């Protein structure tokens, strides 16, 4: 049972590694103002009715990765009374990447769905 759980966790982790960036870009593209990590996590939580897709703590390094690649821009809102919040906003290259990634995602989804449907008939 533990082994099966580990395998499932590993699969979920590998799947998340690719999709988290797409999900974050999509959330930031839909937002009408810059968002900080906790707000993004709350938005993901509200859209996630089943098992959480990923741990919220894993969002932050992905956000940094997207920022590093120039797909997001960010600024820090300093506060002397608490932790500074880093706000993220999608850039033009981020929007372009989102378009291409969505296309790739749809192709992948269709492909996997077809295979899965096919395998049920085997």
């Amino acid at each position, binding site marked *: 049972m533990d082994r099966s759980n580990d395998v499932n966790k590993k699969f979920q982790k590998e799947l998340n590694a690719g999709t988290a960036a797409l999900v974050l870009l999509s959330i930031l593209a839909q937002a009408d103002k810059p968002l900080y990590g906790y707000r993004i996590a709350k938005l993901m939580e509200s859209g996630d009715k089943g098992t959480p897709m990923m*741990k919220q703590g894993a969002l932050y*390094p992905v956000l940094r990765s997207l920022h590093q690649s120039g797909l997001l821009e960010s600024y820090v809102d300093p506060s*002397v009374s608490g*932790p500074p919040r880093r706000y993220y906003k999608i850039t033009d290259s981020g929007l372009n990447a989102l378009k291409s990634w969505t296309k790739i995602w749809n192709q992948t989804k269709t492909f996997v769905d077809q295979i899965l449907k096919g395998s049920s008939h085997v």
Partner: protein
Amino acid sequence: MYENIQEYLAQLKKELRGSDPALIQDALSDAEEHLQNALEETLKKSPQISEPHALESLIEKYGTPAEVASAYKEIETRIQPTLAPTKPSKKRSFWGKFFSTAGESRTWGAFLYILISGLTAVVYGMWALMGGVFSLCSLILIIGIPVTGLFLFSLRGIALVEGRIIEALLGIRMPRKPIFFRRKLNWRQKYKTLVMESLTWKIYAYLILHFPLGLTYFLITIFLLSLSIKCVLYPVWFWVFGRPLITINQPFYPEGWSFPLIVILGIIFLFSTFHLIRFIGRFHGRFAKLMLVRKQEQTFPQGSS
């Protein structure tokens, strides 16, 4: 079960032991920002819940320290700074390696950093010196305490900006978020933390030392580059303007047959300067990391994160 956020952060820090100090600083800062926001919201909605219980469900969503540490380590390997050092190709010959440095972005990043250093050395040095003297003098008056506090606080801002420049140009991983104070501390405790924390004084020392270092990097680089470029272009320089190669007491005009030799020496000198520029970049990046990033071996500070 964790009693408070600090316990969680201490555990997260343990899990990240051995990672880059800048990554640890960022991961702790992210976790604290997230958990503090989440805890405040939870306690506002359900004031009857105790802090440890509220934290338990928040950590369930945020991830255990082991899970979060693993995510940071895993993603960090994929997002090295743009100019992060790359492994040199083993197949290249000595001359191949020697000349290829001019085509590498790290060389030009370090060169740009050295050019900027000419300016930042003066700005940082003046700010540190004048701000320090002014704060010290103002301490005899009551306004001296807030003035000194603001000055020391400004050092952290400068450290963050310098860290971002270093990461962008020298490819050394530096913190991406500023250091902040815990929300529950009063002004007196925050002030004490600012003054007592060794990082504040390390940043101050960095700004003071950056003055001679930055200017030295700048002047040496400009001198060596202009000298080598002059050697490379000397035949043109001589035929067009009739100027000497160097003037020490009296002008020195080399013989015509030695011109090709001077050009070759100039080329070697130019590429050696590129290597020196890279060395300066590497050296300064390590020095900055030592001075501007909190040492992760020390115990978790009570006042700031």
